Structures are given as C-alpha cells and as structure tokens.
C-alpha cells in the first residue's frame, strides 16, 4: 500500500502545532545537546589537527657550550645525521639565534637591548622522523662534552593537549546526558501527540490502516524536531562567541611561533552535517520510543 506523502506531512504539521510548547522544548533540548556534543567534537578535531601539525614541526634543540671546538661541532653534526631517527639537522649560529631572538621579542625592546648577541648559544636544530622519539636524542647526547642543553618542544605541546583533553571529556559526558534527555523529550511529545489522537488512531486501525500508515506521521514529527534541533545547534556553533571559545591561543613555545589551534568554518560545516544527521537520528529514536507501547496494539 502506498503511503501518501501529503497525508503524512499534513498530519505531522497538525501535531506539531497542537503541542507547540513541548515541541519547542524538545527542539531546544536537541539543539543544546547537539551544540554541546558538537563543541566537544570540534574541540577534539581542532586539537588533533593542531597536535599533528605541531608535533610534525617540533624540533629538538641541541644547544652547544661556548667552549666547543669546531671539530667537536662537526663531529656532533655527523653523529646526529647518522642517527636513524633523525631526518634533518640544521645549524643555527649565534648570529642567527640573535636574529630570531630579536624577532620573537620585537615588542619588548628592553629584553633585546639587554642581551648581547654573544649571550645566545649556537645550536643544532634536529628534526625527527617520528617526533615522539625525542628521548633517543637526549639519551645519546646528554653529558657529552660540548653539549650545553637539550630541549624539546613536544613536552610543552603535550601538556597543553592534556589540559584540553579534560575539557573535551567533560563536555562529551555533558553532551551524552543531554542527548538522552533529548531522545526522551521527543518520545514524550510523540506520546502526547498519539494520546490526543487516540480516537482517530483507533478508527484508522479498525478500518484496516497498516501500522506504518499510522506511525509514519508521528515519526516524521520526531524527525522534524530532531532536524530543526540539529540546524539550531549548527547555528549556535557559528555564532562568534562559540567560535572564539573553541579557538584558543596557547603559550608561546620556546623557539617557534606561538601555539594556537582554531576551529574553522569548514570544520563547523563538516561537523554540522554530522550534527544534523544526529538530530534526525534522535528524532527517529525518540519517536520509536514514543511509539513502542503503541506498536503492540
């Protein structure tokens, strides 16, 4: 039997209008839950991307003592290059280090003026094939004559990520709780709609309407609620306050540009599609819960 689409659409519109307030409540709860869940996902996405980006960029800096001889320096460079974990080694002279120092602290001239070009150590910038293997370099070079200090940026990056990780988990748990509330609220609106139309449904069943014919308008109602909620969530994510909340600037790293991660419009649209799909899924789940009791009639 063909189910007439215009019939189903008309029925669900009537239902939504009849239970306006509870429908609005369900839509808002879906919107808020998807907003929270979406924020958590976007945060994770941005963090993961920043993490990848930064981990691939971080270098191990091997600072040299001022008393190192040119021979020792050349030998050290050769040794570094022969390590299988190392992908690239660049030498930074005192002059180059001072240049970079001046650039980094350009807005703090006092610091620059109080530092002599000679005070900054020369160094090797070591780029690793796998950035997590920082420990290897330290193990091999620590204590070697001519090596003043070994520093690694990955640690700073990881600490930063640990902080956002907690934030992300909290918002995910929040989101899941609100997800459940959203599904239950949709179920309630569907049940109210069924209750207000139980006479009509009774007649429909008596004259031989199939269960799906009776169910589909209610499911559509749930789906519409979920869909609007999903769109609402994406709208909230696109508002400037939430975007700036999600994009944060971390501390400046020792010898690179400042660390920051950002949620782009592209991310929001990508995850927005997913959130709207999730909203529709909530609608389906909610209406199935709402209809469950009615299914065995």
């Amino acid at each position, binding site marked *: 039997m063909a189910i007439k689409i215009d*019939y189903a659409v008309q029925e669900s519109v009537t239902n939504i209008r009849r239970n306006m307030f509870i429908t609005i409540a369900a839509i808002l709860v879906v919107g808020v839950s998807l907003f929270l869940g979406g924020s958590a996902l976007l945060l994770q996405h941005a963090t993961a991307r920043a993490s990848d980006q930064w981990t691939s960029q971080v270098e191990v800096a091997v600072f040299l003592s001022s008393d190192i001889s040119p021979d020792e320096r050349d030998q050290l460079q050769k040794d570094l290059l022969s390590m299988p974990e190392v992908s690239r080694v660049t030498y930074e002279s005192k002059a180059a280090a001072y240049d970079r120092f001046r650039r980094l602290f350009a807005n703090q001239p006092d610091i620059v003026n109080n530092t002599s070009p000679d005070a900054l150590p020369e160094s090797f910038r070591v780029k690793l094939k796998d950035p997590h293997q920082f420990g290897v370099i330290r193990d091999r070079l620590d204590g070697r004559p001519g090596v003043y200090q070994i520093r690694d940026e990955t640690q700073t990056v990881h600490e930063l990520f640990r902080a956002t990780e907690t934030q992300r988990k909290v918002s995910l748990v929040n989101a899941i709780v609100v997800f459940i509330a959203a599904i239950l609220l949709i179920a309630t609106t569907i049940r109210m709609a069924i209750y207000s139309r139980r*006479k009509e449904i009774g007649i*429909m*069943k*008596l004259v031989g309407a199939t269960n799906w014919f009776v169910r589909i308008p209610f499911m559509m109602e749930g789906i519409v609620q979920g869909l609007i909620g999903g769109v609402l969530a994406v709208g909230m994510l696109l508002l400037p306050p939430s975007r700036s909340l999600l994009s944060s600037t971390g501390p400046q790293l020792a010898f690179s540009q400042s660390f920051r991660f950002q949620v782009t419009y592209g991310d929001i649209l990508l995850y927005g599609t997913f959130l709207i799909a999730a909203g529709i899924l909530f609608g389906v789940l909610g209406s199935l819960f709402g209809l469950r009791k009615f299914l065995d009639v």
Partner: protein
Amino acid sequence: MIRTVNITKIYRGNVVALRDVSIDILKGEFVFLVGPSGSGKSTMMRLILREDSPTSGEIYVAGKNVAQLASWKIPALRRNIGCVFQDFKLLPNKTVFENVAFALEVIGVSRGVIKKQVPEVLDLVGLGDKSPHLPDELSGGEQQRVSIARAFVNRPQILIADEPTGNLDPTTSIEIMKLLDLINRRGTTVLMATHDHAIVDAMRRRVIELDKGIVVRDQERGVYGYGAQV
C-alpha cells in the same frame, strides 16, 4: 463466513468470557448476537476483529484462521470487515464526506475512486445532501448512518455492528435496521450484537444467545429471549 471452533477466552484473573463456543455463520446471513451484559458478546466481536486472541480454539473469518494470523496481516483482515458502534465513533473535526473518505484514505485508495465511491454510499444511506456537514450538526440517527456508510464504503464481506441502535429512539432504530437489512441483501454478512428486544423480535432472523460465555441458544428466525417464546 465466520466460524468458531471451541473457542475459549479467559482474561487475566481467571475471568471466563467465552467457554467452548462453536458457531458457524454463513455467507449472506444476518445474525443477532444477544445476551445480558458480560455474556461475552463484545469479546466475540473483538476476537473476530483480532483485537484480541482466544485462549484456545480457532476462529475463521472469510476463510482465514484469525487466531493464528500474523500481526502484519491484521489490516488486510479488517478491510474485509466493516464496523459500526453504539457511539458512532465519528471524527468530530471532519465533515460527513471526510469521515467516510477517511476509511478509504487510510487503506490507500486513490482520490478519484474516493470522489466516486463516497457520494455513492452516502446516497445509499440517504445522506447524499449532508456531505459537507460536521457530525455535530446531525441527529443521532444520521450520525449512525454516516458510520454505516463508512463501514460499508469499501464493500466489506462482513459487517459487524455492536449495539448500533443502543443510543437511538425506536423509530430511528427501525430506520437503521432497514439500512442494515439493505446492506445484508446486497450480499454482506451482518453480525449484530444487541439488547434491543423489539428489533430482534421484529426482524425474525437467526439469533445466537450467549450467557456467561456459553452459547445457550442458536435459532433460525428467532426472537430475543425465552420469555418471548412462551
């Protein structure tokens, strides 16, 4: 057309609604189901419509074993059975036309067919001119005609009427009975549960009497009660 074989229905708490009931209603028959309240008439109707299943025994409606029917086949069964109730069960916010058309819409009949069949059946029940009215604007008898039109619009093989005259005065009741008789003469098997002595006595059709869930009488051209026979 409707045949039950030793059906027993026991509700929760060991309430016996029907006990070992075997009846056989042939195609084209007009049968009264009589008996006091609680005698099992309504249970019988519910079992025929498969709103409920018997505890034991078999029910055949239009050749199908209803007691064993898969739930997805129930709608098809009900499309063969028209139903009329004491309280009409019309939708108050739909017009006469829409109420009758509703029965066709929900089974997926096309709009063209609906536009043709609904006026036909409304003419049959004598309400051709009431099409745009709401149920509230009609008398009780007229409302019951609408519900009969709805039950009959897809030409079911069986029409089940549960106290169709229960809310109507005697004159109107006779009109309704004439209508059911007309439908019966067109080949539809009619099973009517009733308390109305006058109607049963006047119609002189087959009477099945239930008492405490047991068939105590099954009589061709019967009357309402034993009292009337004496």
